[in-house]
């Protein structure tokens, strides 16, 4: 049997039991990779359950810096008897299987083509520790220790991480290091190390940070000036609002009084959550809510109100696998159609697609400017993968000279200057009209906001002509939005090839890797990453400039492709579907495979 040999380029998967504190141990493993200067990607594959069911943690180390998922598992660390049968199967031929050898492995699980490394983790724990809780926790540190030995990882780095980790509980430092050593020593005594799989320190991560997208969005909302957050708990968006509150409690407390310069309301449901956000924005505060698919469905009526009454509001949709409750702990990009056209009647909404934590931070913050500028809902579309997994990301930056763009708002002086104020008068010809905030002026500028048809002076009307004028102005505003929203990212100067690929959000990592895979097979194409809907001239030009474009997305019905066809009036034949919707992040091999398959058909 030939065992796999690789340096800084392989996939390790941990099989744990949900709710046994394995997360922190696994995180240390990843932190160590990071501090050894190696690019990685880590995916939590967890059940919709609180305790007891199998959960996996998958880590890819990539010297080349590929941050997408890769399918085959080179090394499996199985600490969960319940999932052991499938875990054994999932190791690639030539791979390694690390397991708790306290109980001997049943013969039926012994494969000829992989290497087994048994570590009697429970046995060691029973010997070393008495407190059952300790036994569970340190068991995790033992396998991390063993791994560090097997994979030739820098133990000093681990010591540093443990020291940082327990800064506040110093007496936990030694025991944790000791637990790791138990694992390291067992390996020393019983196995040849390192394995064919090894890590070598490099300097490849520069000043990058490690952060999950939800935390970045939450922090972005703090920087973007959000003062009101209303939400209802739902996986995978819960941690976004939690992060906003955490950071706000740190950065938004009034020095003198200790009072809060923000308000977080846990609403009774999603209808109320967006209602609160709309009410606050209407009244001049920057407010937002965050949810996932089911919540967006419930927010439909309010989104239509905000579109038609032209009230700014920011909504972040952390997408999960639908429809309905679907697979609530799996990822997908499948709320696109709903978000783009949410609510009855003729409506269109602005969507923003961050692709990494840095963008989550920047675009979440920017969304408040966009909402105020365009006076309409801004829907930030991320997904479970970006929101809940930790990603290697460029550091966050903020220009201290930046001013919030509050959009077109008349203050008291403006109103005194005006002969007559018309809330829906398109005085600038860009489709965007001037609003006033309650409390501005005792006798001028007040108006009545409503979801019913009204004239330029916000007066109720059933006059068809006035209605049509207003609906057409909203289209004009839509055109203005196209060039106001963040522009797409192009990955080449000009267009070099006949074919192109379009992708967005978490599809980016694997799409870029796929370009390399294709190149290896002699296939080259141009690439564009969408960041916003509606699509700007740039997007239109890219599509026009290519004979065929592969649209890569993570849903069944090619929802983004439909938006491109509808809004750009493109011939569908030109846009090829490249899809993955099994709830796991799409891989580069999958993308390049589908593209090559399609090309063979030609």
């Amino acid at each position, binding site marked *: 049997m030939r065992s796999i040999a690789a340096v800084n380029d392989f996939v390790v998967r941990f099989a744990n039991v949900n709710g046994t504190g394995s997360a922190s141990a696994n995180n240390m493993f990843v932190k160590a990779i990071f501090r050894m200067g190696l690019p990685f990607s880590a995916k939590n594959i967890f059940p919709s359950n609180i305790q007891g069911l199998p959960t996996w943690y998958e880590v890819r180390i990539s010297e080349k810096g590929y941050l997408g998922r890769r399918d085959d598992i080179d090394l499996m660390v199985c600490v969960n008897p319940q999932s052991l049968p499938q875990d054994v199967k999932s190791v690639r031929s030539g791979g390694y299987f690390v397991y708790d050898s306290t109980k001997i492995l049943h013969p039926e699980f012994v494969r000829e083509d992989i290497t087994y490394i048994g570590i009697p983790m429970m046995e060691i724990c029973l010997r070393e520790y008495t407190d059952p809780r300790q036994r569970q926790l340190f068991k995790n540190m033992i396998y991390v220790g063993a791994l560090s030995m097997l994979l030739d990882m820098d133990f000093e780095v681990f010591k540093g991480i443990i020291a940082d980790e327990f800064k506040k509980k110093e007496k936990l430092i030694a025991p944790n290091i000791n637990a790791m050593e138990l694992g390291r020593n067992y390996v020393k005594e019983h196995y040849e190390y390192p394995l064919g799989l090894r890590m070598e320190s490099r300097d490849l991560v520069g000043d990058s940070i490690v952060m999950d997208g939800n935390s970045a969005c939450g922090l972005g909302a703090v920087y973007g000036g959000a003062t009101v957050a209303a939400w209802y708990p739902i996986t995978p968006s819960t941690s976004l609002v939690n992060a906003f509150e955490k950071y706000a409690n740190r950065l938004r407390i009034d020095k003198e009084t200790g009072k809060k310069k923000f308000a977080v*309301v846990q609403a009774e449901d999603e209808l*109320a959550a967006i209602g609160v956000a709309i009410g606050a*924005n209407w009244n001049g505060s920057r407010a937002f809510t965050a949810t996932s698919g089911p919540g967006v469905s419930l927010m439909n009526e309010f989104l239509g109100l905000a579109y038609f009454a032209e009230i700014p509001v920011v909504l972040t949709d952390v997408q999960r696998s639908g429809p309905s409750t679907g697979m609530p702990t799996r990822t997908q990009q499948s709320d696109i159609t709903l978000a783009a056209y949410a609510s009855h009647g003729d409506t269109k909404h602005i969507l923003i697609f961050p692709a990494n934590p840095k963008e989550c931070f920047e675009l979440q913050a920017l969304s408040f400017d966009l909402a105020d500028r365009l006076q309409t809902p801004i829907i930030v579309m991320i997904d479970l993968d970006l929101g809940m997994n930790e990603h290697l990301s460029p550091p966050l930056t903020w220009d*201290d000279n930046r001013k919030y763009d509050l959009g077109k708002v008349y203050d008291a002086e403006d109103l005194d200057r005006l002969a007559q104020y018309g809330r829906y008068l398109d005085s600038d010809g860009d489709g965007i009209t001037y609003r006033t905030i309650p409390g501005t002026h005792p006798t001028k500028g007040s108006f009545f906001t409503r979801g019913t048809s009204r004239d330029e002076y916000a007066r109720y009307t059933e006059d068809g002509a006035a209605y049509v004028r207003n609906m057409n102005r909203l289209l004009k505003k839509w055109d203005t939005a196209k060039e106001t929203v963040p522009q797409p990212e192009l990955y080449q100067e000009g267009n070099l090839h006949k074919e192109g690929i379009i992708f967005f959000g978490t599809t980016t990592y694997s799409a870029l890797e796929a370009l390399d895979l294709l190149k290896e097979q002699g296939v080259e194409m141009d690439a564009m990453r969408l960041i916003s809907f509606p699509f700007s001239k740039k997007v239109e030009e890219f599509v026009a400039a290519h004979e065929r474009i592969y649209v890569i997305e993570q849903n069944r019905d090619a929802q983004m492709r439909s938006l491109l066809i509808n809004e750009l009036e493109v011939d569908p034949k030109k846009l090829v579907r490249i899809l993955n919707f099994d709830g796991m992040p799409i891989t580069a091999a999958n993308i390049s495979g589908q593209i090559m398959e399609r090309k063979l058909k030609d």
Partner: protein
Amino acid sequence: MTYVKPSFRHPELPKNDLGFTKKDYEGAISTLCGGCGHDSISGAITQACFEMSIAPHRLAKLSGIGCSSKTPTYFLGNSHGFNSVHGRMPSVATGANLANRDLIYMGVSGDGDTASIGMGQFVHSVRRNLNVVYIVMNNGCYGLTKGQDSATADVGSISKSGVANSFQAIDLTALALELGATFVGRSFSGDREQLIPMIKAAISHHGFALIDVISPCVTFNNNTGSTKSYDYVREHITTADVIDFVPPGEEITMEYAEGTSADLTLHDGSMLQLHKLAPNWDPRDKFAAMQRIHLARVKQEILTGLLYIDPDTEDLHDMLHTVDKPLNALREAELCPGMGALELINQSLR
């Protein structure tokens, strides 16, 4: 079609402390049916705000959908208004209130808007002791959709089409009490003397103030057999107390017999004199209030008056510990931590 009134100034019109006349508190001409109870309530709101000298821009009107929810167009034309979606006024009001704690929020709803589609939001805005005046124009039916029974229609009440309602009526005052509301009143659109001071008290109250106003629908629910008709209400109404509202600063002129009256100081310094109280009945005693409501129900009486008040409570802002300055008045300097703080965060993420 909303008609804007010719608002030529009558110099001789009486002015309030702010120099505003009653006209400055009126709205567009009502398009409701002639005789609709809701119009009387709009009038009472206008009168109360005029007399309290509330600067029009210091008050915001919020409503859901329905004939009742249309009324904000017909009063306080110089105040901002928001006619939102059906049953969701409480959440919009919550957001507005969080954005600026300094304004007065006048929430107007109907029995359908509140007791049916809006029940969840109503319950939770009570629970949060949101600082709003919450007026339910209660006609026991869905006026705007042509008179279907609402959830506040009494068992056995006969609809215009002659059918008797068989479902339990929801008593919003009793419900609010059970949920911990801090100000609960009931009144009748036909009783301005009672309604106007009650609205003033509700405006002065710091916290959630519910006023359930029986407001007959002349077009769809004013027939004999209906328990929300003008006639029926007039015959079955009783009052728990009479309210005198004494603005901050002014002093109390009236004296009332011991045990039959109660004086309360409200959050904004105004005084409330409740008199003609039933013997040993204290509007601060929640359980007694519930008892009275239930007794009245048994006796088929419509009990009106200020049924319960807890004059000093914590509203949502107090519970959330938000700064005193309105959140919508905070700017970059106060909101954005800047690059310095961000650098530290980056550090912590390596």
